[in-house]
Structure formats: structure tokens, C-alpha cells
């Protein structure tokens, strides 16, 4: 049951992407991409890493 506490980390992508005033800017641009676009693409990668981390922390030895 204790391991499930790691699930709370998964709220982060929701907070980061569901409040557009955070990131609705053109600057700073990256490789010509306005902030709005690369910030959200970055969160695709961060969410993937976060899920992998939570998986490692919560997996049971018998999981295959």
C-alpha cells in the first residue's frame, strides 16, 4: 500500500499542461519553436520519464 504513494507524482503533468497561462508565450524560443510548443513537447518526454520512475518504485518482484 505504501508504494502507491508514488502515484501522487503523476499529478504533475496535469498541473503543468492544463493551465495555459503558464506557457502561452512566444519567448524564449528554442530552434525557432515558440515556448508554447516546445514546453508542451518537453512535457511529453517528462511524463514518459516520470511514468518509468513510478513504475520502478512501485513494481512488485513478481511483475513480468
Amino acid at each position: 500500500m505504501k508504494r502507491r504513494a508514488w502515484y501522487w507524482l503523476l499529478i504533475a503533468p496535469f498541473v503543468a499542461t492544463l493551465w495555459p497561462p503558464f506557457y502561452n508565450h512566444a519567448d524564449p524560443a528554442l530552434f525557432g519553436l515558440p515556448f508554447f510548443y516546445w514546453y508542451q513537447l518537453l512535457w511529453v518526454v517528462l511524463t514518459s520519464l516520470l511514468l518509468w520512475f513510478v513504475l520502478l518504485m512501485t513494481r512488485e518482484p513478481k511483475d513480468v
Partner: protein
Amino acid sequence: MSSGTIIFLILVVGVTVMGFVAAGWGKANLQHFDEWALGGRRFGTLVSWFLLGGDLYTAYTFVAVPALIYGAGALGFFAVPYATIAYPVVFILLARFWTVAKKRGYITSADFVRDRYGDRALEIAIAITGVIAALPYIALQLIGMKTVFSQIGGAFGAGGGFVALGIAFVVLAAYTYNSGLRAPAMIAFVKDALIYITVIAAIVVIPAALGGWGHVFASAQAAMAARPVAPGTAPAGILLSPGMYFAYATMAFGSCLSLFIYPHSITSLLAAKSKFVIQRNAALLPAYSLLLGFLALLGFCALAAGIATKDPNAIVPMLFAKYFPDWFAGLANAAIVIGALVPAAIMAIGAANLLASNVFKEFSAQRPPGETRIAKYLTLAVCACALIFVVELPVQYAITLQLLGGAWMLQIFPAFAFGLYTRWFHPTALLLGWAAGMLTGSGMAYWTFRATGKFGSVFPLQLGSLKLIGFIALYALIANLAVAALATLAFNAAKASKGTDGTTAQDYAV
């Protein structure tokens, strides 16, 4: 025949052969429902990754998202946060569903609802919602194929592409009938490889040819600013107008909740061999979302390249024709057609499972013999309905119904997703909530039709002096939950029986 057409033909014929050969994969007895409909629930991480990627990121998605950006600017990018936050939902919710489904032998979402609530009417409502949401989705895949056929021209273009579509349809129905879920699982490898190759080439070559991303965004912004704007609305641009913040967030959130309760998603997820395979895939599938995000930006490339068309769905094929040699355009066309065949097959299987397992008779864990045969015949019927849809009705109907289907689909969320955690809701209250959600969603969509002349996915809700433009599906879900909660309190007060629960706490444990 041009080199592009030859490459196209070789690839399409090749995957057709694969579709039939797939029946022999793993030497299974395909008369068994689990084997035909779910590939025996034996798919590991890699097969599941290709299958889910091939299923969720359809050819239509890859065509429609850039088209949305082309038309609506930054607002169309909501698909990216949507395809990001959907994965924590899979990781927690769908992994739990997989566990109980494996223990109790479910093949559909309605199987679970029937077992959990013991209510036949609720089971039918859930099943029918899935079927009507799946049909226009299949129709859109067929429309995507038809667009490619008519663009290739020659023999393919005969009768506006309908002749080639008819042949493709017969082939699709035949191998799905024959091989079940193994067919799209095997073809998905080819589909996804082709999609990765073409999309990566496109996002490297096209922006470079247009002078880099900085230039693409500046030209796209200028092109959108030059468009005539309807009075009272903000023009599209490369950033959101503040009035659309709420619409953007609610569209991303509402869509992420409904993605994995569609019948085709459930079918692919249940085919995984363990809960761990699903969780590992939740971490690995965002690779497709990244691809989708970059592909979406092709909508701005089309604006920067000065592509003008009445049919925004044609911009991706048009960009390929403009920037790539003929043989590569043939590869891209094959990617779209094969990319449509995979999800169409899974959607047909998912809808047929619901009809065979939940509508014609009620769910029984014994899986009486003959159920597989019924599901196989129903797959043919579902495909035929989708084909009639495409031939008989204008394209706009399929698009509108798919939009409405998204709002309808979300209305099974309380019974399905809340049901995975709590038995607090009364089954009849859930049915009332479902009805309220369906009516609210349809009503709001009809209101946008009356006000603007076309069905939309957002509705301007007036709360005092505050106008909230938000996603209709989510407004409908709120109405649904409110009714379900109030009705449950009323049933509890009246001490009404809650029905029987076939599951136990152990069924949800790992």
C-alpha cells in the same frame, strides 16, 4: 505505372497476406473467444506497443491534427497535452481494469459493468454507447483510404476511389473474420514503421525547405492574421487568445479521460499479457505523442508554404506531393492506407465484442460456445455498416458523428472508471446520469449548430457575467455526475436495493 504506385501496391498487398497468415501465429484455437478477440491475452511489451500505437494513433489522427492547426492555429495543439496526460490515466486506471478483467474473464467494458452492478439495462446502455461511437470512427478511416485512392488516380481513382475502397473493405473484413485481433497486431509492425519513417522525414525535410521553424511560425502567423475573421471571435494565431484558455484545457482533459474507454482501446489493452505490460507501455507510448506533436506543426508548414485548399484534410498529402519524390509519396500513401486498416479492424472487433457479449445476450463468464461465431459474423456486419455510411452519406456526417461520439463515449466514465474503485453509486442512478449526459452533450452540440451553422466541440457557458467556452463532453460529464450522485442519495434515502456485485476486493488486487 509510376514508381510511387508500384511501391504503394507492393506494401498494401504485402500486409494483406500478413493479415491472413496471422491466423497461424501462436497455433491458437481461434474458435475460442479469448483467442480470436484478444489474441489469447498473451501480447508482451513490444507487440502491445505496436498494437496500441497502431490502434490509437490512426491515419485519420495524423491527417486531422495538422488540418486542425492549419484551420484553428494554436488551439489545435491541444492534442499534445491530451496525448500526454492520457498515460497516467492508463497507468493507474486501465492497469486496474486489466487486473479485474483477467480474473473475471471480461472482454469488454460492459462485461465489467454488468458484473459489478448486476444491472442489465446499464450493461446495454454502456455497450450501445461504445458501438455508436465506434461506427463513425471506422467510417473516417475508410474515408481516409478513399482520399488516398482518388489522389493516386488511374485504376485506383475509378468511381471516385469507391471501387478500390470496396476491394480494400472486402479484404479488411475477410482477414479480420479469419484471424481476429492477431491480424491488426501483425500488420501494426509495418504500419508503425512506415508512419515513423514518413513522419520523421517530413519534419526534417519540410521545415528546412521553408527556411527553418522560426520562419515557418512567422509566415504562418502572417497568413492567419490575413484571414477574414467572424465578428466577435478572436483570429487564429500561433498563440492562444485568453478567451480560449478554458476551451484548450477542458478539451485536453476531457479527451484524455475518454481515449481509453473507447472499445478499440479496451480491446488492445486487454490483449496484454500482464498489468506490468500495460504500465510499461504507458511509459513508452508517449513516443507516438511526440511524433504527433511534430506532425501537428506541419499545419503551420502548410500555411507557410502557401498551400490553399478547401479541404484542410488534404494538406498532409499535398505537402508530401510538393516536397518529396514520387516513390516516397507512394510510401506515404501506403502509410495512410495501412494506418487506416489497423485501427479499422480493431474497432470492428471491439464493436462486435460489445454486440455479441452484451447486447444480444447478457454477459456470462462461461462464454458459451457459439459466442465467437456470433462475434465473427458481427464484425462483418459492423464493417458493412461503416461502408454504407461512407457510400451513402456526405463526409461531414461522419466527422460530426465522430465529434458527438466523443461526447457520448465520455458518459460511460462514471459507471466504468468510478466503478473500478467504488460501489457507492446506485446502478439506476448511473443510468439516469448517463441519460442526462447524453442529452446535455447532444443538446449543447445542437445549440452550436443552430448558432453557427456547424456542429462544434465547445460550448459558451454563461455563468453570471463569466463566459466559459469549454469542451461539451466535459460539461456533459459534469451533468452526468451530478444526476448520478443526487439520484444515488435519493435511492439510499428510499432504502432501494443496490443490486448484486459479482466482484470481490481480491479481484482488483495484483
